């Protein structure tokens, strides 16, 4: 306990009084942040990490009740803050950076106006100088052509640029503490790396950072100390180095294990070709989304398709699945033509080819129970329960509606439904991206097990190279609608041949666990 601590929290509790129920989001959290330090709070969704961070700036949310035996910021007792004090404190002492600048910046105002607003509120500099000052701030966060960008709206900027602009607006008030709540979650790996570099730069410049993330690997690169939160409590608090070399709490160990990756290799040799796409090309308007893509998937094989957003990987999935007709090229499934034929001709093959989407919730008819959803995929009269057991679900989810399930449970139901008709190929489009890391690992295990036992082939699409590395046998790297590199996972990851692949790999945050 040093006297110089910038933030000092003791027994912080945040309770939400909602109509008809009360939610204890944070249940007694204590920590300190020293000046110049970078502290990270890590936890899965619902762990209370964001609420904790927002309580520090008095924005825990509507209906929140904040209690603490001690809540000191900059040496002042924040528990006694009047609204005016909070306003002076926000932006001036602490800047807040939220996830996804597309919605965290006002979409109806220009980036420049957003930055100038902070300057205006905190009276930094004369009115006439504000525009120029905003330009300088944008320049500081490495936004090229700041004059032009300042006049643009968030949607006109790329994800990386607008996240930078958001950081610039948080820095505009000259805060001593920068709170970044999942600052990179919505971004592609390469961009994520750039933003992390930018934050590291701020840190080096003396800024105090509080990072919130669900991904231990992301913050490990930056943070001095990590607080691991679970169910509203801090379960472990240690320096990053200590944590990685040996965590105490089983939950932390689980997180570390999930982040460090594990190969799930198959022993079986790939069988005959199940699906084959040749010279696929899809043009929307005058934009070619997919260009000359060849994909072959064999029985019992897991093929990874990796690429950043906009690379055309979802279109490839839709082409293979027969939802979209290719502009040119051909898809064959189980030896028969699958593209360029009427849906009637595809229908007999349909049950042999299944699909798992990123968001299982929207993949279920909201009015159907789990029982009905899965039963639809099974031959009439077949029991549903054994199948659910196979994907690790109890019988008590049978009569629930999809909305009443957790994300992991939903994805398991989706898998159960997909494997029910014993397909020869399942196309998985980002099936684990929306899941917490610990759940991710379980779902990947499940998928690998199914390949093992049923010999089902998987076409696995993901932006996350880590996941591909852990699961796939072969990988195709998609960039601008083209396959820039392909080959066995090991080979591609160890000796990337294409410049783009190298960049992708470099950007992947990894945990260097020194056991």
């Amino acid at each position, binding site marked *: 306990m040093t006297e110089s601590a910038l933030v000092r929290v003791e027994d912080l509790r945040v309770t939400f009084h909602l109509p008809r129920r009360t939610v204890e989001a944070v249940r007694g959290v204590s920590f300190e942040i020293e000046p110049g330090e970078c502290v990270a709070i890590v936890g899965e969704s619902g762990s209370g990490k964001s609420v904790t961070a927002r309580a520090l700036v008095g924005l825990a949310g509507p209906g929140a009740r904040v209690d603490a035996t001690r809540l000191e910021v900059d040496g002042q007792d924040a528990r006694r803050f009047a609204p005016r004090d909070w306003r002076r404190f926000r932006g001036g002492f602490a800047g807040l950076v939220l996830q996804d600048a597309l919605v965290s910046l006002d979409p109806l105002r220009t980036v420049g106006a957003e930055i100038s607003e902070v300057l205006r509120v905190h009276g930094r500099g004369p009115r006439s100088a504000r525009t120029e000052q905003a330009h300088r701030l944008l320049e500081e966060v490495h936004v090229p052509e700041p004059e032009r960008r300042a006049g643009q709206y968030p949607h006109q900027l790329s994800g990386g640029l607008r996240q930078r602009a958001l950081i610039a607006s948080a820095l505009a008030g000259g805060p001593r503490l920068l709170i970044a709540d999942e600052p990179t979650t919505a971004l592609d790996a390469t961009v994520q790396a750039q933003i992390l570099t930018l934050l590291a730069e701020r840190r080096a410049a003396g800024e105090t950072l509080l990072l919130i993330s669900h991904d231990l690997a992301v913050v490990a690169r930056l943070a001095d100390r990590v607080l691991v939160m679970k169910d509203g409590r801090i379960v472990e608090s240690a320096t990053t180095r200590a944590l990685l070399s040996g965590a105490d709490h089983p939950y932390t160990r689980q997180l570390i294990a999930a982040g460090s990756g594990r190969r799930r290799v198959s022993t079986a040799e790939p069988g005959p070709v199940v699906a084959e796409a040749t010279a696929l090309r899809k043009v929307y308007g005058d934009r070619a989304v997919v260009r000359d893509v060849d994909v072959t998937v064999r029985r019992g094989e897991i093929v990874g398709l990796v690429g950043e957003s906009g690379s055309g990987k979802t279109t490839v999935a839709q082409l293979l699945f027969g939802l979209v007709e290719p502009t040119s090229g051909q898809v064959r499934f189980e030896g028969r033509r699958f593209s360029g034929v009427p849906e009637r001709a595809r229908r007999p093959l349909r*049950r042999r080819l299944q699909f798992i989407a990123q968001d299982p919730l929207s*993949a279920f008819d909201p009015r159907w129970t789990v029982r009905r959803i899965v039963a639809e995929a099974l031959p009439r009269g077949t029991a549903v329960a054994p199948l659910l057991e196979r994907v690790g679900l109890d019988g008590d989810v049978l009569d629930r509606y999809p909305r009443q399930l957790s994300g992991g449970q939903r994805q398991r139901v989706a898998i159960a439904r997909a494997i029910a008709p014993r397909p020869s190929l399942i196309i998985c489009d980002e099936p684990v991206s929306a899941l917490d890391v610990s759940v991710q690992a379980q779902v990947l295990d499940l998928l690998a097990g199914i390949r093992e036992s049923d010999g089902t082939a998987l076409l696995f699409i993901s932006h996350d190279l880590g996941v591909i590395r852990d699961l796939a046998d072969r990988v195709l790297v998609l960039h601008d609608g083209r396959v820039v590199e392909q080959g066995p996972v090991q080979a591609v990851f160890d000796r990337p041949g294409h410049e783009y692949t190298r960049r992708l790999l470099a950007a992947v945050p990894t945990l260097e666990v020194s056991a």
Partner: protein
Amino acid sequence: MTIALTRPGTARLNLRVPRPGVAAATLFLAVALTAAIGPSLFAGDPLAADPLHVLEGPSGRHWFGTDQLGRDVFARVVHGARHSLSIGVAATLIAVGSGILIGLIAGLSHRIADEALSRSVDALSAFPLVLLALLFIAIAGPGTTSLIVAIGVALIPHFARVVRAQTFVVRRAAYVTHAVAFGAARSRLVLRHVLPNVLGPVPVLAVIGLSEAILLAAGLSFLGLGPQPPSPEWGAMISEGRGYLHIAWWASVLPGLVVTATIISLTVVGRFCQRRFEGREIA
């Protein structure tokens, strides 16, 4: 020319009513509906004229006073429930039925058919409800039947738009795609997935549409285009009583307040149902 008109009804919904309010509204509607089914249980003859007791104020004998022909205003209001509510219900049924049909066809058809239907609905909704109903009445002549059809037709665009939009969403929803994955035929998709999910919010909308229909009916009857005298229709009563406003406010104001109470109750109950409907899915 695409403009998604928000249903004013949905806007009217934004009110959280305490439970006693919901209970009161439900009770009121129950009474009104009972009155519509068997009005003789509640009040006397709405047509019995009594020239000796014309335009008398509210009293123990005549709770709502008497009108220009000495008829009991309360009896007329109660019996009027049958006219006003059944006009509203019938018109809403027409609107909902046709709206669903048009909306579904538009939502499911290919671009040209959808475009044609949607444009027609657009053109139809180019007209203010009252004007549309007026036009229809100009064709069919005033009377209960034309009033019902006029309001029904006038409200079609509302429902057609909602259903079309909903169909669009549902049709492109991932779960419909997944049904494709099981080789489901088009008809099966529509019947098992699209239709039930499109129709889900319709009953709630219909309740709100009903209040719209009743208000519109009252307005048109006010202009003398509804059920013909001596039928005790609420709007017509307000209109007839208007001429005696200085000397007998009750003849028009009391029926008016009953209309207001009915609409409020419908809104409150509709809103409550909607919250329940949404709540079931979230819980």
